[in-house]
């Protein structure tokens, strides 16, 4: 048993006993872990301190191996993260086991510089990623349109997008919320930004922002998007030269031939999708499989399954699916899933719903960088609605869905190995 090779001493004992010294601390990520989400924060904190760590892919749920240092022990104890002490023999046994199976040890070198694209006044609970980062104790900066259109993106390794509508139609919420104070405020804020940068309307502004984000990835950045940002980023990039927005957004109707004029050559993941041309239908396109906001098309939630990858040959995909569960309950978002028929051939599907025509989670390379899309809004709030209460992650410290988000935060820290295929 691999577990028996490791000194299964509790951290409390370790802290009390000056003789309980180990060379490494193992943060197990299987069911032995009390707080999976904060384990990512502890690892990130170690990287921030310059402590090189290792991500043991497919080993005990994707465990982390960190040199035994007082600061790491303290951080783990404060966060309530389970830590096992591993001496040289235990580590050697671990490495032997890893070398013999579909596992690998990936060095983590440097904490990535993280930016979240979010309005300056957005509360953290409006976005699953900021929720996860705040709970895990991972530092991030907030960026918005001015930063993206300026030189702001260059300072970051990793950018996250959540439910921004890059077609500039504010998720078509005009239909139901045009008089809501928050909607009016967001519209005025975006219009002011557009005018400040010399754009006539919000769709033009957002398409420019989308193109900057695309270029960020092309130059080597990591982009992680969830919910509606995924679908609308694709549409905005493909519709750069076409009017794809309804009249309530830019004063002119959508180009009647917009569908035919979309240019999919520069998009990350999607090709050949069709725009939703009816202004009264709250959907952007047929990219999303679930269409939650169109009652006649809405598909019920099921479960999705994470794929297994070869840790040694496909470490990036393997990192992104490290989890202590392989079948997860699905959850809605403005964009919940991605229709398989619209995906480009090079896309790596990370999770799908068995037998359904859509996928949930996918990844790909683009230029020098890479992107990852995860459908849905909040893994622990399947029916999330506007105005719904924030998720309290202290009640979900072992959330397998939130782990997918945090895998993405940490994977840019991995040292790039030469590809074996």
């Amino acid at each position, binding site marked *: 048993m691999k577990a028996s090779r490791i000194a299964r001493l509790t951290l409390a004992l370790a*802290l009390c006993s000056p003789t309980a010294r180990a060379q490494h601390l193992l943060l197990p990520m299987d069911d032995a872990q009390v707080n999976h989400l904060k384990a990512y924060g502890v690892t990130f904190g170690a990287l921030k301190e310059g402590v090189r760590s290792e991500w043991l892919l497919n080993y005990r749920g994707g465990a982390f191996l960190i040199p035994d240092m007082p600061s790491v022990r303290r951080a783990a104890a*404060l*966060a*309530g993260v389970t830590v096992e002490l591993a001496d040289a023999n235990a580590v050697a046994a671990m490495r032997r086991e890893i070398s013999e199976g579909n596992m690998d040890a990936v060095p983590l070198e440097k904490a990535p510089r993280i930016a979240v694209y979010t309005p300056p006044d957005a509360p953290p609970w409006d976005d699953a990623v900021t929720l996860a980062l705040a709970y895990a104790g991972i530092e991030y900066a907030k960026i918005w349109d001015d930063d993206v259109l300026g030189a702001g993106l260059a300072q970051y390794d990793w950018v996250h997008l959540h439910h921004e509508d890059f077609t500039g139609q504010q998720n078509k919420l005009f239909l139901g919320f045009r008089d809501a104070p928050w909607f009016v405020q967001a519209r005025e804020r975006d219009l002011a930004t557009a005018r400040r940068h010399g754009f006539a309307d919000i769709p033009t502004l957002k398409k420019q922002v989308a193109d900057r984000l695309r270029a960020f990835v092309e130059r080597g950045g990591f982009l992680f998007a969830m919910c509606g940002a995924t679908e609308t980023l694709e549409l905005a990039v493909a519709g750069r030269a076409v009017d794809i927005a309804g009249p309530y957004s830019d004063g002119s109707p959508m180009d009647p031939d917009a569908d035919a004029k979309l240019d999919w050559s520069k998009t990350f993941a999607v090709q050949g999708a069709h725009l939703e041309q009816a202004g009264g239908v709250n959907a952007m396109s047929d990219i999303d499989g679930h269409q939650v906001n169109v009652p*006649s098309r809405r598909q019920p939630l099921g479960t999705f399954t994470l794929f297994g990858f070869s840790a040694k040959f496909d470490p990036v995909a393997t990192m992104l699916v490290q989890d202590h569960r392989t079948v997860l309950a699905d959850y809605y978002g403005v964009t919940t899933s991605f229709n398989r028929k619209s995906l480009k051939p090079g896309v790596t599907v990370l999770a799908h719903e068995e037998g359904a025509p859509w996928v949930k989670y996918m990844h790909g390379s683009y230029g020098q960088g890479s992107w990852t899309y995860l459908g849905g809004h909040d893994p622990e709030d399947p*029916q999330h*609605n506007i105005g719904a*209460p*924030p998720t309290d992650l*202290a009640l979900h410290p072992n959330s397998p869905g939130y782990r997918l988000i945090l895998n993405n935060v940490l994977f840019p820290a991995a040292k790039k190995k030469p590809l074996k295929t």
Partner: protein
Amino acid sequence: MRPLLSTALLLGVVALPAFARAQEPASTAALVSRALEAEGAGKNRDAIAQWRSAIAAGAVVPGVLGLERVFSLLAQEDSILVVIDTLIPRFPREMQLRSVKLRSLVTLARSADADAAFDQWRADAPKDVAPYREYARVLLFNSRPAKADTVLRLAAESLGNTRPLVLEIAQMRSALGLWKESAEAWREAMANEPYYELATVFSLTPTPAASRDAVRAELAAPGASVGAVQALAFLEVAWGSPRSGWRVLSTRPATDTTIAIWRQFADEVERAHAWPTARDALVAIHTARPDASTALRGASAALAADDAPTALRLARAAAPALDSAKRLTEVLPIELEALARLGAAREAERVLAAAAPAIGPDGVRLQARTIAWAWIRAGDIPRARAALKDAPLAAEDAVAGWLALFEGDLAAARLALRNTEAPGQDAVSALALLNRTKATKSAAIGTAFLSLARADSVQATRRFEAAAMELPDAAALLLSIAARIETARHNDDRALPLWQRVAAEHATAPEAPEAYLEWARGLKRRGDVAGARLRLEHLIITYPGSALVHQARRELDALRTGAVE
């Protein structure tokens, strides 16, 4: 059988045969009667035949409902569909037939057929709200709120108005977790039909804490009906904040309707043991419509809420309206107990002396403990002992235990206080102390607890602090009791140094984690976030096995993210 279906079927049994008897020839009524008898006797096969005959004779609706019941008992729900499909073309306007069909198809999980039946009904009655209402109800009953949502949206599109469906919309929204929107729909429903308040409470009770303010805003919006306000008050009780519920109701003018609602509310909060709120409601009722029964209930609630002055006032207000026997059995005990808690020992003795001729020596002896408590509250232990002269207590009586404790006889107190009836905070502290120290005598401890009993918290704090010097084996606990008293008085200037002493001088005592937690909270209240963080971190690292570690982590997270705890 599930409740909604049971209700529907029950209505079928009771109401529809009566309708049939009034409208149909006598032979049809007889057939229905025979079918009911067979069904009642459990002769299901006979009942099927009888119900079929009843249908053939014209009792279509009672017959179909009867068949539905019997087939359901026989787990042959699909058999009813054959009957229904022959009847609908003959009676296309009969809503019950369509309802039974939808109900059966959804129960059988034949979703596509149910949708088709629904579409057909809509096509046959394009302006009628019934298809939407019935299908939505069936879907909600079968835990399919998302599908019900789709049906109700269709209703909005097709009919242009969902007002007749407001009940179903309210239920659907709460089933989907759309609490604010559900409250809005319930408020709308109760504008004309206020008797839906219980349904509203049932539907909205599961609202999570973070969404409750939105529900409150909807139900208490200007112009909300009496039903909406009543529902909100009862929701507050269900959500554990009865005082907020009373705030909602108490501002209404004291009309007969309002007082009837106040009475229901008082019953509810009494059941919930929310005594301060029960007291307030009963006082308000008694003020508006004075009566002895309400006054006595209010006095009991006030005593339970530890509000002796109100208890005394209400008990005395009730007395004139009662006969002498009730005054002695119901008013006198409350009056004496209230006086005892107020420390009004002389007055208690006078009241008891006045009642003595009526209650006799035995009755007087029954009140001896109360009089003794009154003297304890007054700080006069010899007189307390004297009060018990003719009613000696058992060695293990709690009052004897308290007297022993106040006199510093810890050994006797240890024995007797095991039987204390209502362990409040004082009793918990006393028992913890007696369990901790090995000492058998301590005058300092006696005077400290006596100060607490007299509700003299300033003296009590000083004396517990002094007692800590005398009993080193319980010093941490005694200092913690003093610190808790000062914390409860919101006196951080006194509390924080005491918690610091516990933390610094008694780091291995069981109270040390509590001391760090309270110290951190005090520092946070003073704006010293860094200091608070240090103490919380120390608690987590140093006392990893403490039950307070989880709370400390939460408070540490809140400090880090600026969240409100």
